[in-house]
């Protein structure tokens, strides 16, 4: 693996914390988008042979994760008149940051105990993907606004994408295309839900969904 892999992964991990700690929704969207672009570029380094198919894949990933989806989210922001400020759900931002840090640390420790193939054992890729999955999960569960939950879902998918990069040699295209499709569908569905929630309740806080109980 190219030595540039590790620094890029560290930047990706730092973006996790930026997404957890920043207070403006626009900032979180930028962080997640940047992470998506980074992961696209990462695919370039992980793949052994660089042909036209790989470059196409990278371009599609970067385009989708880095431009299309964030544009759509910003559009949804404006449509639903959502306030720019993020109010933290669980405690203050510090709590989420610390939980994210604990999760990342545990991921680093835990990944050594997983039964990985020999060439994958000492990579930073596995702990980084587990940490990103944990961060996405944290955002999904601790943020009340629907749009923040979409962003948490995106982070989660970024983490799974990272893990899928390991299998690049085994199943060249299938994994990536599958993930991207999954991602696209998810975001599509979530955007529709945001639109409906805001239309129904005049706010996008998912707390109001409890009113729908029978």
């Amino acid at each position, binding site marked *: 693996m190219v030595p540039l892999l590790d620094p890029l992964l560290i930047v990706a991990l730092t973006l996790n914390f930026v997404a957890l700690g920043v207070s403006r929704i626009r900032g979180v969207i930028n962080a997640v988008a940047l992470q998506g672009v980074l992961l696209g570029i990462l695919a370039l380094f992980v793949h052994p042979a660089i042909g036209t198919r790989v470059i196409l894949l990278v371009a599609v990933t970067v385009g989708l994760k880095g431009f299309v989806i964030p544009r759509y989210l910003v559009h949804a922001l404006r449509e639903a008149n959502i306030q720019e400020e993020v109010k933290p759900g669980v*405690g*203050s931002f*510090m*709590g989420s940051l610390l939980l994210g840090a604990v999760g990342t640390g545990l991921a680093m420790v835990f990944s050594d105990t997983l039964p990985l193939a020999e060439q994958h054992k000492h990579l930073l890729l596995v702990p980084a993907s587990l940490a990103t999955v944990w961060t996405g999960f944290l955002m999904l569960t601790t943020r009340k606004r629907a749009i923040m939950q979409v962003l948490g879902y995106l982070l989660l998918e970024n983490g799974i994408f990272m893990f899928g990069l390991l299998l690049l040699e085994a199943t060249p295209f299938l994994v990536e295309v599958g993930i991207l499709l999954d991602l696209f569908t998810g975001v599509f569905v979530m955007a529709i839900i945001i639109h409906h929630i805001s239309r129904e309740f005049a706010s996008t806080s998912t707390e109001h969904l409890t009113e729908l109980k029978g």
Partner: protein
Amino acid sequence: MSESLVLLGIIIAASSGVPGLLLRRTSMSGQWVTTFLAVLGAALGLGGVVWFWATGESHPIVLQWSLPGAEFSVAIDGLSAIFLVPVFLISLLGNIYGLGYWKQTEHPQNGRKLRLFYGTMTAGMALLVIAQNSILFLFGWEIMALSAFFLVTTEDNEKEVRETGWIYLVATHVATLCLFALFAVLHAANGSFTLGPLNPETLRPGAATAIFVLALVGFGIKAGIMPLHIWLPSAHAMAPSHVSAMMSGVLIKMGIYGLVRITSFLPHPPREWGILLLGLGVASGVLGVAFAIGQHDLKRLLAYHSIENIGIIVMGLGLALIGRSLDRADWIILGLGGALLHVWNHALFKALLFLSAGSVIHAAHTREIDRLGGLAKVMPRTSLCFLVGAVAICGLPPLNGFVSEFLIYLGLFGTLVNGEGTSFAGASFAVPALALIGALALACFVKVYGAVFLGTARSEHARHAHESPPSMLGPMGVLVACCFLIGLAPLLIAPILQEGVSAWAPNLKDAGPRLATLAPLEWITSMGLLLNLAVLLGGVVLWMRLGRGVVEEGVTWGCGYVAPTPRMQYTSSSFAQMLVGMFGWVLRPRTHHPKDLPLFPPETYFHSEVPDVVLDVVVLPTFRFGAWLFSWCRVFQHGNIQTYLLYIFLALIALLLWR
């Protein structure tokens, strides 16, 4: 010779309160006699310890005792000597302090009781430290614990004091129960009640774990390790200040002594025990100081700081235990050396802080920090003593707190660096925790010193406070001198610490590095002296420069406010607000603020407090649940005498059948 001196000191200290009981309660003569005897006893004890260090020989004294399995065998070794010094020193200073603070003529109903139990507590502690037999140890332990109960409830005419006494009693008896079990297991492993290292061949791992856990719980309750600390805050707050000084400075160290002793008996501790101790130390340290920040009762705050410092001591002990399991002599020496030095340092500066706090309370008649203020102008000497104690407890150079924390830092950093053996990087994560503890302690003591002594007085009592008499200032001055001495000349203490560590790890007695080579103690001395000289020089320069120019006096400018009032000042709760908010998830502060005020609101109030979470959320509900659960037993307690006689008859039949 040293043992006989110490035993003589113990006997005189124990009986020091008795003559007072025989003399009249309205005169001071009883107090004078008691104080003289107590000081004599303590001096003899200290003399015995110094003799031990000078000659280095130990002659155990063994006497027969009629209790089965017990024998009166005492001996001093390096470890006992270290723990004996705070016992006698603080007792000596506390008794002199009591001459001014708890005058018999001002407190006729409880003065003699206080002095009697002060003496017996000293005697009990000294006895358990030199005991070589489990039963004798328990004897001394119980004397200490019960004397402390009577001391805590000195002012038992107040309801709060009585409640505190009950919590303390329950906690100490749970601890003693664990100790009974501990010594039973030790007897089963050792074959006798003598306290000594266990044989690695005959020791079963289950027995070793049981010994460690029982010691941790039993001694941990006494030491005040979180979450077993529930009795500490109220007990130290409600007791008279020189009793709090003794309890905080010495009594909780007896728990540490027990832990250190028992861990020295276990031959091959697994690494997990050291990690557990390190983790508990970190938790006690951080949470202890976090709770302290939220308090506004002066003595409760100081009590929580004791929990923090016990955390630091346990961190050092944990590091030493890890060093023993991984065979790294430098970690053992630095960790245990730092922990033992911190035992001394904490005894010194905590006693100083409590005595100064007592001086403040004696003058201003209140413990509430937010009713004090501006006391530095009316009580300059007390304020200086408190400042020295505050700087010492924050671990700032050039005082003694810095030296022990420095040793522990060096030990923890050593776990990263690959010396002659293995490294264990996980322990190095205690370093930022120690840094956090130091910074939080600094925040808390700036708050206390500023709110109590600086600024302007917030109540009438504080305005009319007066300086304390020399009998109270003298002991504080001695402690200030000791803090400076250890801070500026730690090399003097290094051989004493080395003796203590050799008693814990005998294989390091002649082999292994010396403390003075592992830690650059002579640099600490020179840097401390440099700092003091530079500050003096800077002060002289400023004074001369001010003398040259125009110096006027005026009201505080404060950005243009022309009429400042005492109520405008920052209070202790406002100072701590941000930190209490940051730690809110564990502190759970309770506030009462006015809600739904009309347009022209009437007079209302705001109140905030940080109660003890473990006590209020865990222990008290559990006990209430237990009380409810056992209430069905009341069906047997109906007061009918005939049925009680039936119970006795049934028990008799059962015993006859069982044989």
